[in-house]
């Protein structure tokens, strides 16, 4: 288990880059492979864009809080804004034929596709997204394969 990092950020695109970079470091330090690192950083970026753009609407008086933690079993990234709140159930399905040619509405879909769990919490005001990527126990897969191999001898 490693200690967490908490960032309190302005509602700017610079903050989005900071979240993306911090998520990339968290994923790299956890030993995730290149594809998984890409998934984690992109999900964090999309969540930060949602917080800055749709949540806080670039309001300089509002902050985005981003927490990054490796608890030993999973990477947990929490992004919170101070906006009006978001009900994920009201968002249109970006894969529906009538929505395929929409220019927006794919961010949350990508977040859900790339992470193992995505949880929402309403903060009144604001929305908190918790993104979770489970970590594979180190070496467990190879031990199981070895055990199976020996059993067959």
């Amino acid at each position, binding site marked *: 288990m490693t200690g967490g990092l908490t960032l309190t950020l302005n509602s700017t*695109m610079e903050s*989005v880059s900071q979240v993306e970079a911090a998520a990339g470091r968290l994923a790299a330090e956890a030993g995730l492979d290149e594809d998984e690192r*890409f998934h984690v950083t*992109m999900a964090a*970026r*999309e969540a930060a*864009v949602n917080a800055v*753009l749709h949540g806080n609407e670039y309001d300089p008086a509002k902050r985005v809080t981003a927490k990054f933690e490796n608890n030993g079993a999973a990477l947990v990234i929490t992004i919170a804004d101070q906006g009006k709140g978001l009900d994920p159930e009201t968002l249109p399905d*970006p*894969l529906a034929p009538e929505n*395929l*040619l*929409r*220019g*927006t509405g*794919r*961010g949350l*879909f*990508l977040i859900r*596709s790339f992470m193992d769990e995505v949880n929402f919490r309403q903060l009144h005001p604001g929305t908190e997204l918790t993104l979770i990527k489970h970590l594979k126990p180190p070496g467990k897969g190879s031990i199981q394969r070895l055990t199976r191999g020996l059993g067959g001898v």
Partner: protein
Amino acid sequence: MALTIASREVDGVTVLDLSGRITLGEGSVQLRDAIRGLIGKGTKNILLNLGKVDYIDSSGLGELVSAYTTAKNQQAEVKLLNLTKRVHDLLQLTKLYTVFDVKDDEASSIASFK
């Protein structure tokens, strides 16, 4: 890396060679401006070479869709060339692969514009 766009003409097709990221605040606006500039000049055949685009976010995907629909509304066409694996996977995941005409070979892509 920010997005760079280089334009060239091949047999009546305007090829935009894109390099870098197409993301909110980095490449989306450049791409939008480039497409609107071409459409505004009456360009009908536009091929986006994405061979050096290694990162597209949801905003960048939206910009590709907007390029497609903007062109279609003006009886023009936007096609895609040379997707990196990452961009290919994103287009598959979002079902946009079914929307775009995507090719890996420039010559056949140029020939496919009529």
